[in-house]
Each structure stands twice: as C-alpha cells, then as structure tokens.
C-alpha cells in the first residue's frame, strides 16, 4: 500500500494541529489546551518513548483516563510511530496484566489517576518496564521498585521537536480487547488505513469545523472514543471532557459548555430521560447527536430529538473489528417517516466506501432483503484478531461475492429493505451489550467456574423497561463445596471489568436443560 500523509493517523493530526495551532484542542473541565501545547506535550512523550524503545513494534500502554496525559499519551505513542493500547485504571489489575503479557507491551504511560493501579500492575510484571509519568514529579513517593524499571518523570520530558514519523498504512494504530468466548478477550488491532478510512468518510459526510465543540463521553478502552478524539481534532474543533462528577449532570454540561456535537451510547440518553433531563428544547446548541454501541430505541431517538430540536440525530452501527462504525441512519424530525423494526431504529446504510452482504450460517450469500448474518468487507475491516489464528479463521472468511475475498462475519442478525437500509434483529450466540459494552456471557461463566467448584454455570441477561436496561444474572448449580455468592463475587471483581459483573447470583439445586442436554438459558431468562 502506498504511504501518503493522508493514510497515517498521526500525520493528519500534526497537519491540523499546525493549521489551528492557537485554537483550543482540549477543554478539560474548564482547563484549556491549545493545539500547539498538545502537539508539544505529545512530542515530549514521543521522544521519551523513542529513548526507551526505538525499534519495538509492541504497542505502548496508556494507563490513564480522560486526562491531559491520556490524550497526549495516545498522540505521543502514535508520534513515536507506534500503536497505543488503552489500559483502563478501573479494570481489575489481572486483566490489564494479561493484556500487557499478550501484547508484549513494555512501555506504559500513566496519568496520576492510574498511579495506584500502576503500583499493583508492576508487581505482577516479570519484565523490565519503561514507565513514563508526564504529570508526576520524582519527589513523590511512588513506593515501587524504581531501580528495576526505567521511570521518566515530568521533568525528564523536555524534547519538543517532532520525531521522524515512520508509520505505515498497514501498521497497527491501536489495539483493543473485546470479550471472548473462552474466558480470554480477543485483541482487535486497527491499523492506520482502517482508521483514516473511517475518519475520511465521517469528515466528508458531516459538516464539522473548527468552531465545533465535541463531547468526550467514551472510555478509552471503547473504540468510539477514537471518533471523539480524532473527528474533533481533524476538524480543528475542541474536545470537551466532563469531570467524573458530571455523570448525573450531563444536560447542564451540554448547555454550559455549549457543545455542538454529542456522541454517546443510547444508554446515556436513556439515563438522562429517566432523570427527566430531556426537556423540549433543552439542547439548542447541538447540531449533531451521534449514538452508537447498542440498539437505539425509537422512543429514545424521539425524546432526544425533542430535547435537541436543531440537531441531526444519527444512529451509527459497527463492530470494533470494522473500525468504530460502518453504517449510519439519519433520524427524521417527523417520527412517522422513520424506519423502525421492533421498536429499534434502523442501522441505516453501510457506508458507500465499504461493502456488505448477508449470509446464512453455512456462509451462503443471500439477497440483501433476506434475514441473515451481516458480513463486512473494505478498508475499515481489520485483517484479523491479534495473534489469534483460531478466532481469525472463525470470523474472517472468503465468500463467493464480487471477488472480494476477505469478509468479517459480525454475528449480527440483520435484514434489509429495498433501499438498502438495514435492521438489527439480534444475535444467535451468547454475546450481549451492556451499556454499549460487548459482553460474552460465556466469558463470565468461565470466570465463575474458576471461582467456584461448580462446573454448571450459566449467565443470562435480563431486560427491564422494554429493553432500555439490562442486568446480568448468574445461575450456579449447587455442589457440596460451592462457594458463597459473596466469595464468587469477590473473585469476579478481581477478574472482570465492572460492566461484566453479575447483578445477582442464584445458586440452585440443578439448572434446567434443553432437549440437546445443554443448559436452557432461555428458560433461565424466563424465570427472572
């Protein structure tokens, strides 16, 4: 593939940062950083990374969350011609330690908010680490074996010159992990070509500019955060980051900060609606409202439209494997004109720049108005899972269609209409969405099996309020020495991120089986 400045993510950022140098790039709860400042801070971090590890191909870990260090750390990693891998400080240490090992990452940029986690993480690491702490000074007592690792503090980062960028289009830009079936997450490597294809499409289709103020609601471990960051920066706009305290005061934040572009999972809108915050005309400044990550209900879209009368409401759809989003539906002001099935808004048309087909479970391509599994192909689709041949073979295949030989099977059951608008119908495996997070129920079962002596475990999701919210319930078959609910939960909390934790654990004499002798998850769901 030809390398041009256009298909390398960091080149795109640098070009825009130079163009808009004196404009604000980040508004961190009132604290402003200009593009020039962000560029310089990122260069300092990039030079430190290159001092540690110039040749390594492994991603750089970012143990930070919604802080200046998080954003400049991501840019710094990219500027050092490397990929970044977010390490969520709210995740269990075990999970981040596993990610480090799996990815071969030995360089970590940590923000102040990640320090406590870092100390615990270091204890689990057998290898020598390079640790970059851009907002910590050496006087602070870190209480870890500093002599075993190489630590760079704020004062050690002085070189603001832009390093030579050697990134290639097919080179990984970020590595995320998503829930897997075997109790181990799957690594999703997204390369420069994938991400710049997505950004080009969005920037061309929507009218965004340097006057826009963009929300940043997503965790960095959620790929939709990449949209927040780079759609904002490549438009020359300002990325607005609410403080953690604003979780329950988001409507005030949207108004006070005069946001013009909103992006969140539908769950955030549902939450605001339940708090009576979606009042008519409440968000007059919004010109775009994007939703993605889980089914958007008709009632949520319509309530949001009333609160943001001048905003286009856009339902985006796309698995992490196809880079952020790959289809869009624009909600119409007149509710009756909208395409809705089972109360769920259409996911719209696949971007013209990408390709799709619907196939059955035997990989036979069906017509576009048939019901089947959505398969995707094109410049946004990754080439396979990270060091995981088994899963790559399972989900990435060649299909007999248009000579296009690399198709990703999303596992999402869809159907289309005669205008090529698609509708999400559900899934046939054990993957569910909890507030937009992809959760494989089998992964939870596997962790519970490790915790308890019981082999018979089944976690199901239980819907409330017509699909607006969900909770996870784990059923466990009683054995002589089965652990208590409390002990099981304690183990889960050590190994699973918060959104994968069961809200309820039920220990039963025996679990119901279906005619195939498998645990009858459907019946368990019905019992709730």
């Amino acid at each position, binding site marked *: 593939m030809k390398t041009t400045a256009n298909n390398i993510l960091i080149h795109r950022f640098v070009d825009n940062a130079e163009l808009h140098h004196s404009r604000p790039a980040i508004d961190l709860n009132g604290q402003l950083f200009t593009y020039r400042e962000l560029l310089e801070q990122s260069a300092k971090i990039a030079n430190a990374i290159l001092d540690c590890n110039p040749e390594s191909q492994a991603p750089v870990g970012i143990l930070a969350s919604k802080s200046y260090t998080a954003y400049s750390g991501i840019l710094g990693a990219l500027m050092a011609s490397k990929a970044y891998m977010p390490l969520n400080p709210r995740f269990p240490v075990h999970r981040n330690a596993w990610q480090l090992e799996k990815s071969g990452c030995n360089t970590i940029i940590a923000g102040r908010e990640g320090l406590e986690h870092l100390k615990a993480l270091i204890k689990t690491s057998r290898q020598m680490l390079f640790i970059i702490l851009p907002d910590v000074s050496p006087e602070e007592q870190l209480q870890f074996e500093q002599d075993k690792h190489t630590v760079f503090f704020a004062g050690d980062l002085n070189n603001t010159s832009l390093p030579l960028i050697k990134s290639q289009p097919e080179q990984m830009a970020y590595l995320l992990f998503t829930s897997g079936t075997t109790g181990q997450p799957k690594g999703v490597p997204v390369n420069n070509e994938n991400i710049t294809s997505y950004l080009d499409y969005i920037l061309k289709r929507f009218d965004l500019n340097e006057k826009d103020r963009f929300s940043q609601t997503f965790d960095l471990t959620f790929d939709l955060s990449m949209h927040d960051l780079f759609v904002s920066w490549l438009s020359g706009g300002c990325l607005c980051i609410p403080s953690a305290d604003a979780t329950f*005061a988001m*409507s005030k934040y949207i108004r006070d900060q005069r946001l013009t572009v909103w992006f969140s999972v539908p769950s955030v809108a549902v939450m605001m609606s339940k708090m*009576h915050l979606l009042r008519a005309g409440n968000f007059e400044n919004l010109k775009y409202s994007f939703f993605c990550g889980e089914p958007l209900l008709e009632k949520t879209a319509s309530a949001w439209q009333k609160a943001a009368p001048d905003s286009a409401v856009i339902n985006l759809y796309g698995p992490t494997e196809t880079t952020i989003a790959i289809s869009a539906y624009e909600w119409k002001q007149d509710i009756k004109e909208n395409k809705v099935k089972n109360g769920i808004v259409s996911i719209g048309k696949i971007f013209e720049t990408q390709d799709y087909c619907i196939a059955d479970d035997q990989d036979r391509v069906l017509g576009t108005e048939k019901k089947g599994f959505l398969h995707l192909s094109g410049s946004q689709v990754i080439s396979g899972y990270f060091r995981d041949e088994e899963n790559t073979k399972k989900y990435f295949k060649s299909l007999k269609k248009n000579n296009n030989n690399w198709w990703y099977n999303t596992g999402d059951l869809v159907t289309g209409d005669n205008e090529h608008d698609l509708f999400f119908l559900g899934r046939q495996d054990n993957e569910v969405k909890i507030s937009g997070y992809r959760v494989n129920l089998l992964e939870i079962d596997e962790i519970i099996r490790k915790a308890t002596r019981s082999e018979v475990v089944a976690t199901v999701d239980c819907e409330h309020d017509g699909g607006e919210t969900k909770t996870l319930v784990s059923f466990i078959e009683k054995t002589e020495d089965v652990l208590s609910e409390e002990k099981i939960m304690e183990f889960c909390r050590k190994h699973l991120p918060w959104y994968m934790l069961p809200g309820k654990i039920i220990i039963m004499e025996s679990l119901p089986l279906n005619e195939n002798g498998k645990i009858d998850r459907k019946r368990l769901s019905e019992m709730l």
Partner: protein
Amino acid sequence: MNDKEIKEFLLERLENRLKIYGLSRNELKGDFDLVKSGLLDSMAFVNLIGDMEERFGMEIDFESVKEDELFTTISGVIDLFLNWR
C-alpha cells in the same frame, strides 16, 4: 414519609446487591456512596431513584440538583427525597 421509611425502602431494593457484595445493612452508614463504592453503576442508581420516585409519588428535578451535592450517598438519597418539595 420520614427518613426511616425511605431508608427501609432503599435497603430493601439493595438487598440482592448487598448479599453478593458481602455487606450487611448495618455496615451501610449515611456516608456510604452507592456509586463510588461500585455497589451500583450509574444506570442502576438512576433506576433505583426511579423506583423511589414511584414509591413516594415524587419527581426529582435533577436539573436543579448540584453535581457536588453528594446525592449518591445513602444520606444524600434520603435527603434528596426528604427535602424535595
């Protein structure tokens, strides 16, 4: 409606969670933060408030609640309902 009534309803709704987190009712002092402690996520917290609104026949106006007013603690939730007019 008094504070005891509100607290009783609140604890009743939290029973399942308390069980799996190994917490007893007595351990839940007024300054216990339901969200920051990880007992509830923000959606579960909002659902709890919704249940309480229904139970006590009120509608809380979150637009006028200040974000720094620790309303996610036990006593915060109780005060929210007790002082709501």
